[in-house]
């Protein structure tokens, strides 16, 4: 991420960056179990955040208690606990609560549910969905598991090897995937009912980011690749409103015009 609103993150001083982080943008990490300082009680970690962002201790504790309630956490117990005394799901919910502590407008969630069992996954997602509505904030999910989040998100952006390959409203992308990678992703999800043999995995290995293939990064694994894919990288072509887009030569005319 380089820009937030008008501000270029690279041009900021440490303190400007520091102010932006958590007050405007917060983050929930993939392995939330390890994102808490193991030596401090949760209460102390909340106070540390409050102090460094010039927020009154009492006020911070009050909102922390509220957030605990939203997260179905016993605030008395959790706030006085050390991280190792909490279960994985609890730590995950604590780190979500921490992310919401300063009322940010954007929360980035990096695989927030992969480290959890299925039941905790469901409850964490339900909580996130509720919080999104009640706190009026934006969420960005980073995940490889489309099925889990498709209930919550509005838009999906599919990325391969660091580039956007497809974007659009969640219904469009899931029901009518256009990029072969998106199609492959969706085909690899085992269906709840029906024939398991229809589930397929993409062939090959994820691209080596240090040695990206020439042309389209996906062409070595793409079932529909043709000669042009090996020669030039496709640009992201969007429709008139910028709502949906795909980066694939299959959907571009020879002149590079938009055929959507």
């Amino acid at each position, binding site marked *: 991420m*380089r820009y937030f609103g008008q501000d270029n993150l690279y041009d900021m001083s*440490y303190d400007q*960056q520091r102010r932006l982080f958590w007050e405007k943008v917060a983050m929930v990490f993939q392995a939330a179990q390890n994102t808490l300082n193991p030596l401090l009680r949760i209460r102390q970690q909340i106070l540390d955040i409050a102090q460094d962002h010039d927020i009154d201790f009492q006020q911070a504790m009050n909102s922390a208690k509220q957030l605990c309630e939203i997260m179905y956490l016993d605030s008395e117990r959790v706030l006085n606990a050390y991280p190792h005394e909490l279960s994985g799901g609890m730590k995950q919910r604590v780190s979500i609560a921490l992310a919401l502590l300063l009322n940010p407008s954007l929360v980035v969630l990096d695989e927030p549910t992969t480290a959890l069992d299925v039941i905790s996954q469901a409850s964490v997602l339900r909580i996130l969905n509720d919080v999104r509505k009640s706190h009026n904030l934006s969420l960005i999910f980073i995940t490889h598991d489309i099925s889990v989040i498709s209930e919550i998100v509005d838009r999906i952006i599919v990325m391969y090897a660091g580039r956007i390959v497809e974007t659009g409203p969640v219904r469009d992308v899931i029901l009518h995937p256009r990029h072969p990678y998106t199609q492959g992703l969706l085909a690899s999800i085992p269906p709840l009912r029906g024939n398991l043999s229809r589930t397929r995995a993409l062939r090959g290995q994820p691209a080596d*980011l240090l040695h990206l293939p020439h042309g389209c990064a996906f062409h070595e694994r793409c079932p529909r690749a043709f000669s042009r894919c090996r020669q030039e990288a496709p640009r992201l072509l969007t429709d008139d409103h910028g709502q949906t887009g795909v980066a694939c030569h299959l959907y571009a005319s020879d002149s590079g015009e938009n055929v959507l």
Partner: protein
Amino acid sequence: MRTFWHILRKRKMRIVGVVLLLMFVFMAIFGPIIYPHQPAIHPNEIYLPPSWHHLLGTDYAGRNILPQIVLGARNVLFVAALAALFTVGIGTLIGLAAGYLGPIVDSILMRFTDMVLTIPSIVLILILAITIGMSNDVIMAGILSFAGWGGMARAIRSMVLSIRERSFVEVSQGLGMSRTYVIVKEILPNLLPYIVVHLMLALTGAVYGEVGLFFLGVVPFKADNWGVMLNFATGGSGAMYSTRSLMFLISPILAIVLLQTGIVLCTDVVNELVDPRLRNTVGGYQANGRRRQRRTSVGRISVGGRVRSSSN
């Protein structure tokens, strides 16, 4: 051989280290050929400054110092190398036994190891040295090896415990391979890098202990050991308190410091030579492992610096 040069050239200090160590090994091997006789006493050449004839000057009895240093290298290096071998041998054996022969053997051996680890090794060596006596070099090396095997045994044990959980060992066991086969063919090769590096560390420890015993004067003097020279320089001869006798004091000091420096710098070389993971890494980035990739795409933290992001 080419990798060896490559590793050497990466840091200039490493070349210094190898040269130093080779110099002392050369002294130890060819010293007695260069100086077949003990340096003679010349009562009217006491404490001469360095000159062409006496490169390091002369001592309190007018003897040339350089041959004493050169001849001392053999005794120091031989005993230290032997002691290092013993240390590593005992450490590896006890570690292997504790890690591989099951929980009962393990807990007995580890209690024993813990006990040895709490005893200050130099003190134990001192007491052993005078009760057992240091009549010959092999016994001396054996006593010195008491100093360092504890830490090594613990490390080897924990490595064996983790290696035996890995699939290739289980497969060998499942195929009905004998214990000896599994240990020699599957486990030892994985421990080898650590063992080799520890051999170098044990060498510095043994030099420390051995020269120290002579320095304290608790074992029968050998004519040509740097510790004996240091003992005479600081004690009996009174050389310590006269600036004239600087060379007699500084020569054994320099010899010990240079030898230890050489060994330490060579440890660095050996470390990289036997552990291929330290080679060929691009800024610590390895292209395998999802978590690693993740981390680089989110940003790398540098203390006090900014979060740098590679995907923008």
